């Protein structure tokens, strides 16, 4: 593989990590922190740095639900899949979101403006059912409120 500018940058980014030092996830986190996702080229660089096979690194990236392989959306909408949210109408919220934004979970709208992510309960169940817009908890939400919010986000995004 030829070293392009991008791979050189990633090499520098992960230069501190060592083989056999519990460094794979820390390295991937660092890449994702920098780029918002784990680009394909990065897997090769990380693999080389940690002396692992590229398929091995790819396997890890796909195993963990918090690693993304597509660029992050400008606005990220996390939908809580937890029990308290489900009990209080979280499924309505999900259907409303998917129908309004016309995407499914782990997908982005045109031009990566908005993206949906299936999230796990973080213990703010007092606001169930809820979503997090760029990390900020919004709830409790009815389906109607969700649709209004999603439409606003859709119109405003960009």
């Amino acid at each position, binding site marked *: 593989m030829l070293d392009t500018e991008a791979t050189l940058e990633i090499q520098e980014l992960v230069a501190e990590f060592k083989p056999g030092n519990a460094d794979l996830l820390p390295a991937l986190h660092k890449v994702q922190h920098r780029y918002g996702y784990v680009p394909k080229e990065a897997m090769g660089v990380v693999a080389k740095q940690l002396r692992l096979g590229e398929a091995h690194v790819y396997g890890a990236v796909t195993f963990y639900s918090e690693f993304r392989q597509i660029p992050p959306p400008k606005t990220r909408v996390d939908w809580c899949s937890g029990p308290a949210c489900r009990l209080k109408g979280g499924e309505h919220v999900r259907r409303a979101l998917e129908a309004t934004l016309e995407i499914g979970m782990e997908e982005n709208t045109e031009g990566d403006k908005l993206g949906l992510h299936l999230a796990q309960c973080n213990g703010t169940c*007092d606001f169930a059912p809820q979503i997090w817009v760029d990390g900020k908890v919004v709830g409790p939400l009815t*389906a109607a409120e969700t649709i209004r919010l999603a439409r606003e986000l859709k119109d405003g995004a960009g």
Partner: protein
Amino acid sequence: MLRGFEELRSQADGVWQATQSRTVIRVPIATCSIAAGARETLEALREGVKERGFDVGVQAVGERGLCWLEPLIEVVKPDGSAILYENVTADKVEKLLDEAIDGVCADLAFAVAEGPDVEGVQRLDDFDLWALQDRRLLARCGIIDPENADHYIAHGGYSGLVNALELSQEEVIKTVEDSTLRGRSGSAFPTGTKWEFLRSKEREPKYLICNADEGDPGAFVNRILMECDPQSVIEGMAIAAHATGASYAFIYLREEYPLAIERMEKAVEQARERGLLGEDILGSGLSFDMKVWVGAGSYVCGEESGLLASMDDARGMPRIRPPFPADAGVFRQPTNVNNVESYADVTLIMQKGLEFYNSVGIEGNRSTKIFSLSGHIQRVCVVEVAFGYPLRDLYHAVDPATYQERRKLKALQAGAALAGILPTHLALKLPLDPDAFKEHGVLMGGGGLVFIDDTACIVDMNVMFSWFLEDESCGRCTTCHGGTQRMVEIFRRIGSGGGRSNDYDKMQMLGKALQYSNCIHGSASPTIMLKSAEFFREEIDEHIIERRCRAQVCRDMIRYEITGDSDKLLEAAAICPTEAVVQTDEKWSIDQARCIRCNACKDVAPDDVRIVDALTDVLPLAVAEARAAG
């Protein structure tokens, strides 16, 4: 006394006293309060105090666990009297500053925490959900600044480590054994025994892991500890290091807890700065350090062998045991894995002594357990109660109105996805004691308690949990990933009207097969399915035989219909994301082919829309099955 600890403590006392010499407003900054707007409140308070030129401190602290009252602000006067104010969002800050600094702001007051009685305001100690608690592990939450190690030290912090360092390894382990402490993750494995496994290993270096993956949906016990009193976890790990000879530790923390990550990292750094981590701690000869290691969203990585695999530069697939972590853990070296709360318990034991520790609780489970309560209750909260506390009393305190109205609580789910589910009539009879739960074939688990009322559908709950289990199955053994997949299929089918009379046999067969999974994720996964079939048979039967969902939750079993003709339907038509609310010749109806049953139309036009059973008039099950058989 160990070298330098006296100085540390007097310096810490000085730091703490300085904050108390004038009126101080404590603002909880933790995940729940932030969601309720506490950051904005903090900001507004700081500005307001500055503008008014008040000589008042504004202090960020941890939260007390009373989530529904957040932001729950405390105003502490120099004479020690303190009043708590509820739901103080930024817009109420002016009012609070007008009234609460020189007197009492009666409109916002929740309770008197310290000092003389105030007319018309209850005392915190009399408030039922507070009075029933035994706050030991949570004692400092909401009082101290979790980002200031001195606050912790000024409140008895690290005296437990000092006490432990004066004992031999064997003596510390004996003390932990005598406390009967059992793993708080839900494992219930005796902590002292586990430590002895590690201590007896010759091979070095030895490692500790703090399992802070807290993946159980609905559990946020560890999060509160890490966000609000992080040093207590670090102190417990240092004690464990002394007792077992471990020299390094990893805190395996889930990525979904960004604030806990930040606070734990800061706490580790501050402990190191004070010589409480690092080389030759307090001149005792103990050298021990640690770092936070961030997970990436995988439930099975909470299982200790999955966790180890994940740290071993790989996918977090649980391994077949033995070898156990004490033989081959991180880097294949001897390792001990404990839960966050288990380490915090050790801190308590060593700070306060066995007599104190053992003074509450029940035989075999002394002291307390932290629980997070959510679901169909009014007061979502985190509480700490003595083992053996009656669940019924706790329920009444978190849902007072429901109790009065007798709205129907249906089930309790303790310990999340793997632990099972119990109907109310059994659950509310139980004490909070893991052994009592076990008698019913379910687990009490790590502290998550989800209350479920009759607006929920048991088939839907199973669809949700079995889907979670399938999604989180690591995929190594077909038994687990195939088995959990079958669970999802069966419940989805039942929920969409395709239930068959032999489905219960299938569940039993699956339950047996799953026992042969590689790890507990697989073998425990059918618990909720089997318990549902045992305790909620009538409701599942309704789905299978009558094709009816009594809670009107299963989407394929219901249909939305227009019953009215008010103007609100215009709004309903506008809100519908699939344009399914249509008007032809003045008459409103719902285009069933388009409807996704999101309920939005009913949200805006509740009197004009109703939900009806959609499948009850299709062929009865017996006829359908006979026909299919030819």
